[in-house]
């Protein structure tokens, strides 16, 4: 069966869900109906994505004949294998969010509009992934941006909300301009608008144009994906959206940026030479490191997760860049291997980041705050939520045996084989990228120990945190994603088999035997380099924990045990403020990396010259300098404002001057036409 039919079904379901949400979202039954249809669409999309991974690329379809889209070009759809991963993640995320939304949102007019926008965004994402032609892609991309803008602007009256949504829209539009430029150049040079045709004719295009196109595409999609320094909208937009909106943005929309980069890098734009791969890999590595470093300084859980998304985007783009490098050096096995590893990380990140954002929403609802320094001890008050969040945290910190570990292992193994390129310089640069990813991985563990430990462990730091209750919290969606995380890890051989089928359509390399030699083991594209079995690792770790536990339970002494408090030095009252705060826990990174943060610290006392020596309350403030806003964006904005101010005299309001303009332009057109 053609997977495109499944995608039609999913798209139709989401359109129906959008209508249902808009018309009936003001009541609870309407809300439930909308979410149910959306979940159905998600399930169909998940099936369609998985099926298209195995099926391969479908032919381009122009439904409705030469039916015109809004801009007058035909609607061209194609279900590709490369997009299959992204469609599957989209479906899974949609199911989880649809399960989560009914208990999270209150029915009302705002919710109705929000749900309609959300389902339209799902539809637009699907259209981007299923686009077979340039115009379809661009129209779908812009629709997705607009729908996500409405998503972020759930609470339009709030200043933060408006600011975050504005940053998102502004930078998305700049990125869109660059993407349009890239597509238009490529389309003009290949005289085609269907992506497949562009791909087959691309090698005929002049190398310089191909290079320019690639750079435009990297920058344009980099805005959406969150590459540094194009990432500044992410930490502004994600926290202000509702939790499931942030989950959708981080889990899916950011992935579309990565999809765009993959589209140009692997299908459409065969740029020669090693430099495109180097640039991409370098951008990815820098993004990953800077992302996690900024994450360490965040107290707001959602901003923290937003920076972590930037870090993971960096990892994915590094994998893609390294794949391009190996392709340039004619190592097809490693080329396909790193592409597979990058796609695997896309799937994994979609799972656990969505989970973490949904759980952040649960925490916000239960404890009333997103600030880590106001939380604490939630593991006792929200036990099931804590377990689910812990699974997600293990995944994103890339700890065995979960899925993050598998995909990062694959990426590292691919990077470690850089010596096979034969060029010393390239090998060193690849190892540098691997080292940067290693730093990122270590900091990620540190960051997520803080991200899980400070809110969930210890004692509650405020009354609302102590009063948090789990009753009525939406845990079904996150639980589904936790199961998916475990399944992606334990079922790694299956996932890798499917991904290698997808990679074959793009790279032409059938990596099966070089990746999965049997017995549930994975080898990194070359036998004899290393080997690893995620399934056996998971089983072994569970057994290693279970066997001592069983021995203990069986041989427990019969005497009753006494439970006494932890020895705290005999203090009479242990106050929650004696615990680590989120900022003190990450203080070592502030000290080590203060060249990046440039913290501005101010300490003021109420009075410095009190005769009794008391100084009153001390006010301490530490701010991370927003390096990119201040040194990159503000100058650009000021330049644009200056330019606008310089042009302003043209709009004098004088009708005579305007007539003069018209006359001058006609004269110019006549002269140019005559020549």
């Amino acid at each position, binding site marked *: 069966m053609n997977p495109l039919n499944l995608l039609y079904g999913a798209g139709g379901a989401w359109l129906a869900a959008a209508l249902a949400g808009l018309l009936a979202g003001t009541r609870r039954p309407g809300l439930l109906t909308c979410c149910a249809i959306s979940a159905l669409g998600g399930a169909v999309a998940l099936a369609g994505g998985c099926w298209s991974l195995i099926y391969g690329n479908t032919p381009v379809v122009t439904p409705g004949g030469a039916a015109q889209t809004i801009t007058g070009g035909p609607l061209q759809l194609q279900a590709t294998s490369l997009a299959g991963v992204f469609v599957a993640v989209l479906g899974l995320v949609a199911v989880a969010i649809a399960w989560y939304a009914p208990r999270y949102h209150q029915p009302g007019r705002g919710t109705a509009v929000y749900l309609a926008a959300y389902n339209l965004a799902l539809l637009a994402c699907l259209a981007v992934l299923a686009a077979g032609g340039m115009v379809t892609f661009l129209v779908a991309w812009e629709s997705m941006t607009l729908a996500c803008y409405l998503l972020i602007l759930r609470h339009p009256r709030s200043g933060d909300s408006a600011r975050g949504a504005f940053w998102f829209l502004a930078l998305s539009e700049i990125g869109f301009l660059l993407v349009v430029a890239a597509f238009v150049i490529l389309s003009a040079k290949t005289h085609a608008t269907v992506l497949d045709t562009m791909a087959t004719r691309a090698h005929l295009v002049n190398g310089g144009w191909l290079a320019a196109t690639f750079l435009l595409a990297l920058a344009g999609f980099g805005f959406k994906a969150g590459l540094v320094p194009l990432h500044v909208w992410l930490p502004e937009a994600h926290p202000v959206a509702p939790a499931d909106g942030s989950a959708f943005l981080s889990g899916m929309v950011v992935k579309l940026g990565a999809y765009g980069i993959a589209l140009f890098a692997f299908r459409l734009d065969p740029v020669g030479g090693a430099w495109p791969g180097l640039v991409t890999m370098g951008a990815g590595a820098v993004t990953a490191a800077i992302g996690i470093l900024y994450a360490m300084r965040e107290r707001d859980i959602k901003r923290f997760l937003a920076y972590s998304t930037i870090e993971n985007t960096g990892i994915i783009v590094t994998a893609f860049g390294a794949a391009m490098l190996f392709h340039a050096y004619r190592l097809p096995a490693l080329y396909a291997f790193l592409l597979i590893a990058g796609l695997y990380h896309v799937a994994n990140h979609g799972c656990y980041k969505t989970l973490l954002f949904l759980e952040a929403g649960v925490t916000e609802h239960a404890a009333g705050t997103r600030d880590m320094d106001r939380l604490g001890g939630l593991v006792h008050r929200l036990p099931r939520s804590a377990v689910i969040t812990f699974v997600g945290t293990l995944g994103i910190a890339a700890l065995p045996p979960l899925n993050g570990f598998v995909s990062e292992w694959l990426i590292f193994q691919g990077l470690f084989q850089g010596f096979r390129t034969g060029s010393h310089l390239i090998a060193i640069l690849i190892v540098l990228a691997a080292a940067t990813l290693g730093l990122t991985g270590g900091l990620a563990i540190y960051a997520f120990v803080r991200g899980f430990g400070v809110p969930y462990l210890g004692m509650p730091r405020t009354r609302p945190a102590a009063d948090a209750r789990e009753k009525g919290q939406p845990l079904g969606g996150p639980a589904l994603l936790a199961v998916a995380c475990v399944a992606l890890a334990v079922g790694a051989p299956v996932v890798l088999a499917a991904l290698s089928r997808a990679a074959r359509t793009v790279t032409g390399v059938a990596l099966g035997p070089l990746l999965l030699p049997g017995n549930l083991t994975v080898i990194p594209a070359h036998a004899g380099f290393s080997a690893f079995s995620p399934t056996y690792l998971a089983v072994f770790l569970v057994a290693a924990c279970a066997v001592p536990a069983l021995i203990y339970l069986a041989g427990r002494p019969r005497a009753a045990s*006494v439970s*006494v*408090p932890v*020895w*705290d030095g*005999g*203090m*009479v009252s242990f106050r929650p403020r004696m615990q680590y705060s989120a900022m003190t826990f990450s203080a070592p990174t502030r000290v080590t990396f203060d060249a990046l943060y440039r913290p501005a610290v101010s300490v003021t006392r109420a009075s410095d010259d009190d005769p009794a020596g008391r100084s009153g309350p001390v006010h301490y403030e530490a701010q991370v300098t927003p390096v990119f806003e201040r040194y990159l964006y503000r100058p650009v904005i000021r330049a644009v404002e200056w330019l606008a101010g310089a042009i302003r005299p043209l709009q004098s309001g004088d009708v005579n001057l305007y007539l003069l303009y018209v006359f001058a332009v006609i004269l110019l057109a006549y002269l140019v036409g005559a020549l």
Partner: protein
Amino acid sequence: MITGQDEAEAARQLREKIAAQFGRSLHIRTLDTGSCAVCEQEIRLLSAPHYDLHRLGFFFTPAPRHADLLLVTGPMVRAFEVAARKAYEAMPGPKMVVATGACALGGVYRPDPFVHGQVGAVLPVDVWIPGCPPSPLALLHGLSVAVGRLAEKTPGLTLIADGQSPGDGT
């Protein structure tokens, strides 16, 4: 349950048990409940080369979790009661408490709003070591009694002198 055996036999068995448990290795946690610190100085001398309690298998440890015996000085000021109870409860069983110094034994300070007067008011004391301060030898003796290495002499002691007294003619 020890039934049908006389007390001396039970005491002997208990001593043997204690000796078996602690006789070769005892970890001591000191606790100062408000003393003048002279008892602490004598306790510190135990680690010095002349008295060297390590040769007897006694060790000092700061963590109650690792301690077998709580060596308490001071008259148990009320402000310290919670900490003393916490330290005692933090010790895993089997555990013992030894009170040492005249203040800890009671009588020196009357119970009042600030002080209990004796350690036995808060903790269950197993061995009392008198002295002000107790000399390190007395402490070693008391600790050896606590682990069952030595028998206590006090019940048989009358403190009634017999024999010659200095310059006594009558």
